């Protein structure tokens, strides 16, 4: 089981799911209608490190963070 958390303005409660890779996470998140406008502009961190590869392998207890567009300063 892994945990997916949604940061900043997305305003969605964390989800727990079975997923072997980030591609599995993508498939499950696409089923969530409230995320449909977010996914194309969100970046992803795995255990607080930014990731860029859908084939990234996940293990039990991993934490995936969904980061929407930013504007610091």
């Amino acid at each position, binding site marked *: 089981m892994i945990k997916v958390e949604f*940061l*900043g*303005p997305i305003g969605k409660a964390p989800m727990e799911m079975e997923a072997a890779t*980030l591609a599995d*996470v*993508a498939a499950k*998140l*696409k089923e969530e209608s409230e995320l449909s406008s977010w*996914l*194309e*502009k*969100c*970046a*992803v*961190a795995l255990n*607080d*490190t*930014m*990731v*860029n*590869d*859908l084939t990234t392998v996940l293990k039990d207890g991993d934490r995936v*963070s*969904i*980061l*929407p*567009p*930013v*504007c*610091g*300063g």
Partner: protein
Amino acid sequence: MELYNGPLNTKEIFGRWLDEEAESNYGAYIPFVGTIRAEDDIEALSFDIYEPVLQKWFDEWQEKAAALGAVVKMAHSIGDVPVHTSSYISAVFSPKRRVALELIDEFVEDFKANAPIWKYDVKNGKRIYAEDRSTPMDGAGLLN
């Protein structure tokens, strides 16, 4: 890296940074201050920060600066910051001016693009995500 609830005490922070590096033999100190402007009838801006990723982003910049013999520092606000107060300050110290001038530009621009901070306008006490001024981070769209 320093995070504060509410507006920054810019004079205290800049003064302390100067004191910290007073004996470090840096020839240049270039500060940047971001101040909340009164526009679009906002009362304040408000900020969410994801600190673990921000810290890693900042640590990478520290290493990049160190390779040039320089130091970067930054402070940012969490929560509401009223107009005419400051939410973000940063600074570069370097042996000579050219490195500091170039680094502060790169650092502030990358900060705007990739620091995990979310901005909201505060109007009539409500927070409204500043979506039109926000930038997708590097790698955005991976799960789409």
